[in-house]
């Protein structure tokens, strides 16, 4: 499957116009100027496929599912044709020693040029024994693979920020890719799972412009993570009007009012769900009536109850009774001491006479 992308797409029955249209939409989603769609299409159509190595660590394969197994064949899946996916455990036919050989061959052949995609966190506990492939720890594999990579794409919240494995009490000592690799450009595409179009957007950008897209302070492409779910939410007008669903089956819920009070984490979650949507544009969590869980943010699992509004305490204040009792006791003690002091002053006092008026 060598040769320009457009040819392989054509073989699969994808016309040039379909591709152009897709690129226009992709450019729009990445907040690139409309003309970039055409440029992107031309660049990608003619691009040579870069070698890509995909390493799965402590993960659930949900990210792979999200990106490769949409319910009907889509361009997200097909775009993988523009890369040479040399190692992907879930997808590759090879197994065992064969697979390991393929990995090493690809790393050697494309040293310094391949893209490394990682999903899953890396456990550090017990010398990394919690997750090993072919007898080698994830940490060891990552370090080796990272050395020859041109850039690393951390797909999913686990790879980007540690994700669910890192949730308290973090039994495996899970960390993110960026906790380990410090000397390579890393793009984080968080989400549990991440929005597929973000992945293709980043690849398209890399192929078109030869560089990684603009990233925010958490290593996420600004084009997709620049705004919060709340900012782009179609239910936002209800928030502004103060109309909230109070339960999942009340009048407000049926009318599609804001889910803030039901614990929606949209206001603090940066992701593209509200615009890119899921399942080929069918819907997304808030549209289907459930608040955002905030899955694309670091440590979202430990950020308080999923069903508690952001403005309420993460848990009921535990100090109320104790503080009141201690306060009352301390206050009463101070009160007694003060009364005693006043009484002592009264007893000790000598009535004053005119003579006392002199200094």
């Amino acid at each position: 499957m060598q040769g320009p992308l457009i040819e392989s797409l054509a073989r699969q029955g994808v016309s040039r116009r379909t591709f152009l249209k897709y690129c226009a939409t992709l450019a729009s989603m990445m907040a690139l100027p409309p003309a970039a769609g055409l440029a992107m299409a031309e660049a990608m159509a003619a691009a040579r496929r870069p070698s890509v190595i995909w390493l799965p660590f402590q993960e659930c394969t949900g990210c792979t599912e999200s990106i490769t197994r949409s319910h009907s064949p889509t361009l997200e899946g097909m775009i993988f044709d523009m890369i040479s996916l040399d190692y992907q455990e879930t997808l590759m036919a090879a197994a065992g020693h064969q697979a390991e050989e393929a990995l090493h061959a690809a790393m050697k052949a494309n040293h310094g040029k391949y893209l490394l995609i990682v999903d899953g966190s890396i456990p550090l506990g017990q010398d990394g024994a919690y997750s090993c492939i072919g007898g080698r720890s994830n940490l060891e594999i990552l370090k080796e693979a990272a050395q020859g990579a041109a850039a690393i794409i951390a797909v999913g919240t686990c790879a980007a920020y540690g994700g669910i494995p890192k949730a308290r009490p973090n039994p495996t000592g899970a960390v993110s890719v960026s906790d380990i690799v410090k000397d390579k450009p890393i793009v984080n595409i968080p989400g549990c799972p991440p929005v597929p179009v973000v992945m293709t957007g980043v690849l398209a950008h890399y192929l078109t412009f030869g560089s990684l897209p603009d990233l925010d302070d958490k290593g996420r492409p600004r084009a997709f993570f620049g705004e919060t779910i709340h900012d782009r939410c179609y239910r936002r007008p209800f928030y502004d009007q103060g109309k909230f669903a109070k339960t999942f089956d009340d009048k407000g819920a049926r009318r599609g009012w804001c889910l803030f009070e039901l614990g929606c984490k949209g206001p603090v979650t940066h992701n593209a769900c509200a615009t890119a949507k899921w399942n080929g544009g069918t819907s997304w969590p808030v549209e289907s009536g459930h608040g955002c869980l905030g899955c694309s943010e670091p440590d979202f699992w430990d950020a308080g109850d999923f069903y508690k509004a952001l403005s309420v305490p993460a848990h009921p204040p535990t100090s109320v009774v104790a503080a009141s009792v201690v306060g009352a006791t301390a206050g009463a003690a101070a009160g007694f001491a003060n009364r005693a002091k006043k009484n002592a002053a009264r007893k000790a006092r000598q009535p004053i006479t005119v003579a006392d008026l002199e200094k």
Partner: protein
Amino acid sequence: MNELQFLTWVRGPGLDIAVGIFLLGTVWRLFEIYTLGRRKDLAAPRRAAGASGLHTVFRRSLPPHGMLKRAPVSYIGGYIFHIGLAVIVFLGAPHIMLIANLTGLSWPGLPAQFIGLATVMTMAAMLAMLVDRINKPAKRFLSTFEDWFVWAVTFLPVLTGWLAVQHLLLPYTTMLALHILSVEILLIALPFTKLFHVFTLFGSRWHNGSANARKGVPV
């Protein structure tokens, strides 16, 4: 610590600490103040004090005779910022949620735009009060570090809340966390600064009102 962890901390342990200190301090100080007691007035009253203490509690909320003209900034600014704070705290949807969560009591709120307007007016009034404190000789003369500190501690929750909602200066998550943190600082400072007048003003007005009512003077 990233901003979501920061937010989680201020919503959890931070709030616990602040509410704890606030309650402890408030209960303790109320005891400390009101257990000092007072001597019974033995003079025959002109008329029974009755509910005069309560009358004074309400009457003192209005500018006394001729005073509005003498200190317009203090009164108008004071009204706007006290009422503004009450509107924001008790009628802003996220705040009602908080109260409902803590007490189980809930009521309808006002639209976000209205709360936004109230916030801007409150901040303007507070700035005017600050300028007045700097300009007016008596006020400036009385001012100590505590006065400037308390002004800032009161202003910051309003400012950070507004910045968070308007998405200004810092990302929403950070601003929201700062907003909650600033409220926690306010809670901690309240029992130990002049902010404690939110409680003692009732006692003070009551004492003044009932003592003078015995003489027959409505104050």
